[in-house]
């Protein structure tokens, strides 16, 4: 990894203009029209008109550390992120033990030193995510937490949620809400409806999500707190958030690639790789997801990357855990399912993966301009590739997209100027990024 890198002949993600970019000392040194005289030292990457953009940011991943390193580690998760074009992730605290004190935040940040992606820890809202006693929000923020969440174990008590929203005003941390009424979910395993009925699986109604979205909108009105809705999956939630925004409430929301790509019919063969929570919903909800992305109800994308071991997923359906991996398919699913069909421009899609999530968490800006950090992705929006879970950098292979042919992928990723990912065999094709410089040519 050289100190100095030249990316030549890339297309600027916003203007579409061919540019040459110099990275030096971890930051962007300059950006200029392509074709200007090149410097002679350092690595040279021939971008061949691939698109250069700020690195993607995923504000909802499960890195499984501390405690569940057979599913994923900070290192493997970061490598998966880099392979997917990401330069920053925010990791959820539902680990074992729960990240609910400044010590674990510090531990995670130390653990993340030198991995292939920036890692921003999210702290629990309540001690042990038990939904009762608030954690030390102020100290957690000081230690480096970027948000608060009881993801996976949603706060059932409206009173506790109210107090959390109030107390969080002593920080700049948003509360990321996994919206789910656990009594309505019950023993539910998948979306409630004809497919669940046919498979004889207990259903989770949309209302399990929407009643909590509505509750928390009311609590935001009551407290002036800052809420971000995680992985919204259904029409009713989008409607509620849309109305709230119209009323001027400052809430934000994310959705994930699987909700705009799949419906509950993906579970027809009891495929545990399509088992996630919130569950894949109906066609109508899938359409509503795309609509909510288009009209700005959705503020950013996230993957809800949730790795599990093969053993955990290779069980009868009701015994297998919820969750799928997402970091390495996110960009492909975005371009294939949203950009190619014309639902979204590539520029807007990239905004939703870059600037938008940074705004939601208040992360520092990354622009394609001098002196900004060289957190960059070079991507080919036309590259066609086949998803092979065996080649994932993530330890998790639990994806419903194995064998899918996707369009669009990250060719190379730099984080703080360091090359963290490059598609193998690129140089051999004589196309796109080619690490050159001293050793190469």
């Amino acid at each position, binding site marked *: 990894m050289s100190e100095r890198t030249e990316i030549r002949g890339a297309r600027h993600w916003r203007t579409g203009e061919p540019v040459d970019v110099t990275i030096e000392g971890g930051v962007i040194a300059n950006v200029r029209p392509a074709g200007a005289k090149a410097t002679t030292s350092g690595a040279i990457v021939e971008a061949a008109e691939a698109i250069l953009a700020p690195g993607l940011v995923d504000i909802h991943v499960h890195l499984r550390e501390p405690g569940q390193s057979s599913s994923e580690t900070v290192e493997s998760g970061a490598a998966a992120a880099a392979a997917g074009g990401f330069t920053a992730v925010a990791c959820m605290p539902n680990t074992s033990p729960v990240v609910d004190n400044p010590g674990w935040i510090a531990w995670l940040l130390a653990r993340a030193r030198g991995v292939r992606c920036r890692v921003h820890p999210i702290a629990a809202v309540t001690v042990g995510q038990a939904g009762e006693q608030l954690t030390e929000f102020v100290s957690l923020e000081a230690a480096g937490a970027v948000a608060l969440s009881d993801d996976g174990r949603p706060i059932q008590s409206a009173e506790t949620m109210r107090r959390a929203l109030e107390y969080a005003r002593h920080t700049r941390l948003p509360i990321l809400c996994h919206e789910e009424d656990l009594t309505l979910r019950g023993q539910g395993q998948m979306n409630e409806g004809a497919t669940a009925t*046919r498979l004889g699986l207990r259903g989770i*109604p949309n209302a399990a999500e929407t009643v909590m979205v509505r509750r928390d909108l009311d609590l935001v009105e009551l407290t002036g707190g800052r809420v971000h809705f995680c992985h919204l999956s259904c029409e009713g939630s989008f409607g509620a958030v849309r109305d709230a925004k119209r009323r001027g409430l400052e809430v934000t929301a994310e959705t994930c690639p699987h909700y705009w790509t799949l419906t509950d019919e993906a579970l027809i063969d009891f495929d545990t790789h399509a088992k996630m929570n919130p569950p894949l919903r109906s066609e109508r909800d899938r359409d509503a997801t795309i609509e909510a992305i288009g009209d700005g109800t959705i503020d950013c994308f996230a993957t809800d990357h949730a790795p599990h071991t093969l053993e955990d997923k290779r069980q009868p359906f009701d015994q297998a855990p919820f969750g799928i991996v997402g970091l390495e398919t996110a960009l492909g699913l975005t371009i294939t399912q949203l950009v190619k069909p014309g639902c979204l421009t590539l520029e807007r899609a990239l905004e939703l993966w870059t600037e938008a999530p940074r705004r939601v968490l208040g992360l520092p800006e990354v622009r394609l301009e001098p002196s900004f950090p060289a957190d960059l992705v070079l991507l080919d929006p036309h590259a066609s590739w086949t998803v092979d879970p065996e080649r994932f950098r993530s330890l998790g292979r639990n994806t419903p997209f194995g064998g899918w042919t996707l369009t669009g992928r990250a060719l190379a990723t730099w984080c703080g100027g360091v090359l963290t990912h490059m598609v193998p065999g690129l140089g051999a094709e004589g196309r796109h990024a080619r690490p050159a410089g001293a050793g190469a040519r």
Partner: protein
Amino acid sequence: MPSATVETLARGSAGLFLYPDRRHLLGLEGIPRDELLALLEEAQRYRAMLDRPGESTRELAGVTVCNAFFENSTRTRVSFELAEQRLSATAVSFSAADSSTAKGETLLDTLRVIQSMRVDLVAVRHGSSGAASFLARHLEAGVINAGDGAHEHPTQGLLDLLTLRQAWNGRFEGRRIAIVGDVAHSRVARSAFHGLRALGVKVAVAGPATLMPRGVERLGVSVAASLEEAMEGADAVMALRLQRERMEQGLLASLGEYARVFGVNERRVRLMKPDAVVMHPGPMNRGIEISPAVADGERSVILDQVTNGVAVRCAVLLRCAAALAGRAR
């Protein structure tokens, strides 16, 4: 593994056992009409054999079957065992209580161990929907679903069809049946839906709204507002078993009210055609989903269902064993 006996049979039943996955019977969903009718025809032959005391065949000699029951069951397990004995299979059974699952072994590992003892067919009963197809994906042995969660119970579905075939003199087309009670939790109902639909029977379901799964009409049945509406003019009624824990789960008010509103009683039976029959998959809660007078009445074919169960399982075992033999060739 599968013996020459079975190979002979496979040839003898040419046309029936074409698909490679016929070594499994995972559900009735998707089985075409002709194949169902052929299975019933075969089952009827075994029913006749069962009615001749002491008669058995060597049709499954050399075939090893394991009845793996991870959920309590008396009738289904005994029925499988008797069918296996009638056909001279080598059969063993175990139930969850004495299995390794309590020791932390996964379901798949348990079954792989069983398979390694050169078992050809596994009849599996499990509380998880999809457990049978899960095993079928990972095992070489043929898998017969003996009931998986609330998904399917195909041999029960077939015995219900065989019972109706007898009651209806072989004519299914245009008949109407009411299936009433706890549809949500019933694998019996789901297998019945698929089988009956394939044979052209109109199905109406009725029961408490709390036990009626959403989207059930997409399985090709109509939802009636009451038992009376479902049963009016029907050719048969099937009362589903009510698990008492549904009350603790807050899905029902009381057993008394259930019996009054959703129980199959004499008054409701009189709404059906004069020759209509009454079915129940068992075990019955007398006085709850079915009144004793109806259960023991002249319209009841409940004990026929049980006899037919053995016959149907003979036909299914043979079908799966023959498919296995076909694969081995």
